[in-house]
Structure formats: structure tokens, C-alpha cells
């Protein structure tokens, strides 16, 4: 009974839903602030994302005519729950002694749910622009998922004995130094960051949202609290993906003493790389994106994999 209760607490409060949402929203502020600085602007104050979400919670939810009500409203919630779960798994695996191992396949699988949720929600909204966004999102998933999985499995190959448990990967790194010290894992890390860009639908891969042509595409018909859920899910993804990369490539999160500072530095570096890529690249077309991911990126990922098998 007590363990069930603590599991629920883990999921809802720390390190699940609430914690991830708060840190994720703070991260979106870092994103907006850095973007503003890149463009020589001042940018919003630190509480801006919280103000946005609070405001959205107080607004009316408009359900478009011809929308499938249930699918439209439930799909974003599925995405939210999935990211909260991934975050919980990653943190519990990082907090040794919580007695939790965590499975890599589960993480990869759950990380696709928010995108799938957006596809279902957008298709249920009955808006033609949203459905274009949904179809683009689908193609994008097909494009980036292959190199993403190869990149993750490069890390798995590197770990000996080979393991799919987050716990095992962390253990190996604690004993033998971080995986990012190897050439193969550096390549895999670069590939993973590029795929993260597409997973977050950030420029240059914001094709499903395409503000100028699709008016936010997949999010277009959402309003009020439903839009808040969508925004919070995105923010949580922005938090979860770097944590995932730190866990499998960069030695995991140290949660004691000076390690905390080191963890924050690692996190901020990854977020800054993502934001800088976002700010310096224009949007590509969907066919270019698919070609990019299935061509150079997959080849790069396979090269990394081969190097890992060769032991580099």
C-alpha cells in the first residue's frame, strides 16, 4: 500500500508531473530569453510561461463544429501523461536506491506518444490545416525515429555487458567514465540532438506547426485549458529529452553536493545547443526533412553504430 502511494507521489509531484512541468516551463523561458538575446531583444520576464499557462486555464475551450469532441480533448492528455511517466522513469533510474531500473525501450516508446497524441487531436479537430499538420507530423515521425533509435542503441552497444536497463547504462558510466568520451557516442549524441529538434518540432523542423503557412497547424484549434495542456506537454518534452540524453550519454544526473551544479551545467548546455539550432535555421520542407533524416543523419548514425561495434 505504502509503495503504491509513493509511486503515485513520484508520478504526480516529484519527479513526475508537477516538477517536470515547472522546470519545463522555466526552460521554455530560457528558450524565449535566449531567442530574444540572439535577436537583440530584451525578451519576456522569467514568469512569462507561468502567466501564459495560468491565463489559458481561465479561458473558454472552444470546440470546433465537426470536431470529434472526446478524441480532440483526450489526445493531448495522453501526451501529457506519457511525458510525465518518462520523466518519472528517468529520474527514478538516476536516483539510485529508489530501487527502480527503468527500461530503455519503454522510454523510446513513451517519447513518441506526445507526437501521436497531437496527430490524433489534430485529426479529430476537423480543421483542414490541422490535418495537414497532422500528416506532416506523421511523416516527420517516420523520418526521425530511425536515426533516433540507432543513436540510442549505439550507447547500448557501447555498454558492456550490453543492457537495455537505464540503471545498467548509468552503472557502466559510473565505473568507466561517461560514454560521451567515445567517438561513436559523440556521433550518436549529435544525431540524437538533431532528432530531438524534430521531436520538439522546433525549427528547422517545425514543419507540422509552420506558423506562417499552417497557423500553428496541429495546435490550431486548441484553446483555453486544452491549449495549456499542449503547451505544458511541449515544455515537459523540452525538459525530458535533455535529461534522457544526459542519462544515456553523459553520465546521468548527480543529485548530491557539487554534482547538482554539474548536472545543471550539462542540462543548460544541451538546451542552449537546441535553442541555438532553433534560432539559426530556417524551416525546411517536409520532403527535405525526410531526405535529411533518412540520408545523411541515418548514415551518420550507422557509422556511429559501426564504430561502437568496433569498440571505438
Amino acid at each position, binding site marked *: 500500500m505504502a509503495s503504491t502511494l509513493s509511486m503515485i507521489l513520484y508520478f504526480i509531484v516529484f519527479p513526475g508531473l508537477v516538477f517536470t512541468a515547472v522546470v519545463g516551463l522555466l526552460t521554455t523561458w530560457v528558450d*524565449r530569453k535566449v531567442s*530574444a538575446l540572439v*535577436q*537583440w*531583444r*530584451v*525578451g*519576456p*520576464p522569467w*514568469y*512569462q510561461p*507561468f*502567466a*501564459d*499557462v*495560468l*491565463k*489559458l*486555464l*481561465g*479561458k*473558454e*475551450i*472552444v470546440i470546433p463544429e465537426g470536431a470529434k469532441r472526446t478524441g480532440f480533448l483526450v489526445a493531448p492528455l495522453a501526451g501529457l501523461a506519457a511525458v510525465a511517466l518518462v520523466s518519472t522513469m528517468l529520474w527514478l533510474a538516476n536516483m539510485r536506491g529508489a530501487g527502480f531500473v527503468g527500461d530503455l525501450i519503454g522510454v523510446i516508446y513513451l517519447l513518441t506518444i506526445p507526437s501521436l497524441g497531437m496527430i490524433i487531436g489534430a485529426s479529430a479537430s476537423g480543421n483542414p490545416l490541422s490535418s495537414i499538420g497532422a500528416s506532416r507530423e506523421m511523416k516527420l515521425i517516420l523520418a526521425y525515429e530511425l536515426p533516433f533509435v540507432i543513436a540510442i542503441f549505439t550507447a547500448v552497444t557501447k555498454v558492456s555487458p550490453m543492457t537495455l536497463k537505464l540503471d545498467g547504462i548509468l552503472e557502466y558510466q559510473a565505473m568507466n567514465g561517461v560514454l560521451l568520451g567515445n567517438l561513436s557516442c559523440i556521433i550518436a549524441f549529435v544525431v540524437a540532438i538533431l532528432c530531438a529538434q524534430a521531436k520538439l518540432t522546433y525549427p528547422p523542423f517545425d514543419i507540422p506547426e509552420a*506558423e*506562417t503557412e*499552417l*497557423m*500553428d497547424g496541429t*495546435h*490550431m*484549434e*486548441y*484553446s*483555453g485549458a486544452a*491549449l495549456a495542456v499542449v503547451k505544458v506537454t511541449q515544455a515537459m518534452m523540452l525538459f525530458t529529452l535533455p535529461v534522457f540524453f544526459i542519462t544515456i550519454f553523459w553520465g546521468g544526473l548527480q543529485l548530491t553536493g557539487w554534482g547538482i551544479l554539474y548536472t545543471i551545467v550539462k542540462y543548460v548546455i544541451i538546451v542552449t545547443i537546441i535553442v541555438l539550432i532553433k534560432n539559426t535555421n530556417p524551416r525546411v520542407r517536409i520532403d527535405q526533412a525526410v531526405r535529411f533524416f533518412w540520408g545523411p543523419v541515418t548514415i551518420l548514425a550507422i557509422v556511429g553504430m559501426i564504430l561502437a561495434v568496433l569498440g571505438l
Partner: protein
Amino acid sequence: MGATGWGFKKSLWVFHLNAGACNNCDIEVLDCLTPRFDVERFGIKLVGSVKHADVLLVSGSVPRKVVPDVIETWEQAPKPCAVVALGSCGCTGGIFKDGNNFAGPIDKHIPVHAYIPGCPPRPEAIIGGIVKLIGTL
């Protein structure tokens, strides 16, 4: 006026509706987003979909053809939502008030919460108008 009210004041998302404007007002709106004026400091940003909007920024003299569109856009906006009439055209009809197609001004068709006159209004005037609007929310 609780937390959501605070959020509403601090985060106005603007949907820009061109109802028969000559495009000058619209260019001035874009000016507000440039580094020199940077309205994102106040949490204001332009959104592409009216479903995300807190402020409907309507410019133009509202010719007869767009009246149904203006009304429909207002009805689609999730409430609470404020309407700002931008430019002399939006406020009174301006130089088009005797025009054959003129069916405005905006407040004849939808409720307006703030007026920003000028032909076109300067970015400073637009920001000033929005600040006054925030004061009344």
C-alpha cells in the same frame, strides 16, 4: 481577479485581423515586434490562430464584404477576449467614411474595448493603447 486574471494581464496573445486596411496599420503592428520596441517584454505575442487569441486587433474600415468574417472571427475567439480598433479607419472610418463600400466602423459590428487612432498609429501609440487596455482589464 485571481491567478488567471493576473496571467491575463501579463500575457496577451494578439490575433491580428485585417478588415480592409490599406496595410499601413499592419506594417506598424509588425514594427512593434522588432528589437526596437519588442512587445514580448510585456508578454505580448502575435498568434496565428484566433483560438489562441486574447486580443483581437482589428484594423481597417470594414467594407461590406468582410462584415460577416469580422463577426465570425469574434464569435470564434475564446472569451474573455478584448477587441482593439487600430487606426483611424478602425476607430471612425477615417478617409473611407464616405466610401461606397464602407460598412464600419468596427464598433458597429462587434464590441470594442480600446481605440488606437492614427493613420497609421506609431508603434509607441500602439504600445500605449495596449498598456491602457491592460489597465482596464
